[in-house]
């Protein structure tokens, strides 16, 4: 990708990431988050991580974000009318974020990282190379991931289901207390 495209995408990512945290309406925050994730996906593709970039679009835009939207609608969240936080908290938060960014910038500066620049091997970022790594060096981790996902499915169903015999969980709480 040409450099100006990187600059543009980077600016877009930062602006939409800011949009996530400054907007009052959770839906607007969510849409800004989708924009950020898309931009990051395009940056992945620009960095020759093509498969991972498209997987990011499918997994995030197609699944996780819709889950978020459903939850926002299910809870019927409205625009926050009051202040989103204390002023001191805001100041403290911004300061921390700025300090953290500076710190990360200095720690992660390339001289410290000692990255040995090499040319990418042929087929870098292709599905075959990704799968090759995944099913040889990382096979155990890959198989454990399936257990993780299963646990997540069981866990979320157990959390979200209503207790048997009670239509309204609030009624159950009242009788219990």
């Amino acid at each position, binding site marked *: 990708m040409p450099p100006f495209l*990187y600059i543009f995408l980077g600016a877009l990512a930062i602006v939409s990431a800011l949009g996530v945290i400054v907007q009052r309406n959770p839906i607007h925050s969510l849409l800004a988050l989708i924009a950020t994730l898309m931009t990051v996906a395009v940056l992945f593709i620009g960095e020759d991580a093509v498969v991972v970039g498209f997987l990011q679009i499918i997994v995030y835009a197609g699944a996780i974000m819709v889950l978020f939207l459903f939850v926002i609608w299910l809870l019927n969240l409205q625009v926050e009318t009051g202040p989103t936080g204390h002023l001191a908290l805001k100041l403290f*938060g911004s300061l921390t974020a700025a300090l953290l960014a500076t710190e990360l910038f200095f720690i992660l500066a390339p001289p410290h990282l000692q990255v040995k620049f090499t040319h990418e091997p042929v087929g870098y970022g292709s599905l075959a190379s990704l799968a090759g790594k995944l099913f040889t060096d990382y096979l155990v981790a890959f198989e454990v991931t399936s257990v993780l996902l299963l646990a997540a499915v069981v866990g979320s169903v157990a959390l979200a289901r209503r207790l048997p015999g009670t239509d309204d969980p609030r009624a159950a709480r009242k009788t219990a207390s």
Partner: protein
Amino acid sequence: MIPLTYMMSLSAIIFAIGVAGVIIRRNILVMFMSIELMLNAVNLAFIAIGSRLGSMDGQVIVFFVMTVAAAEAAVGLGIIISIFRNRETVHADDLTLMRW
């Protein structure tokens, strides 16, 4: 190829924005979105360094991070729904039962 400094500073800025979101916002859902932002900032760093090193390990890690993010989103949103059912709020400051 764009200098590594650019990608790393972009990643650092997005990560910091995510941290700021978790600190400033009191809506659990938005805090949750900020966590996703941080995960993505880290992914970006992995991909950038991986492509400079010519190694696929960075992409494999990103693959795993995405899986964990999906699992985390499912369970986290389940927790948020059950909190809302019991306390009818998604405001982090209202959840004071465990506060000392």
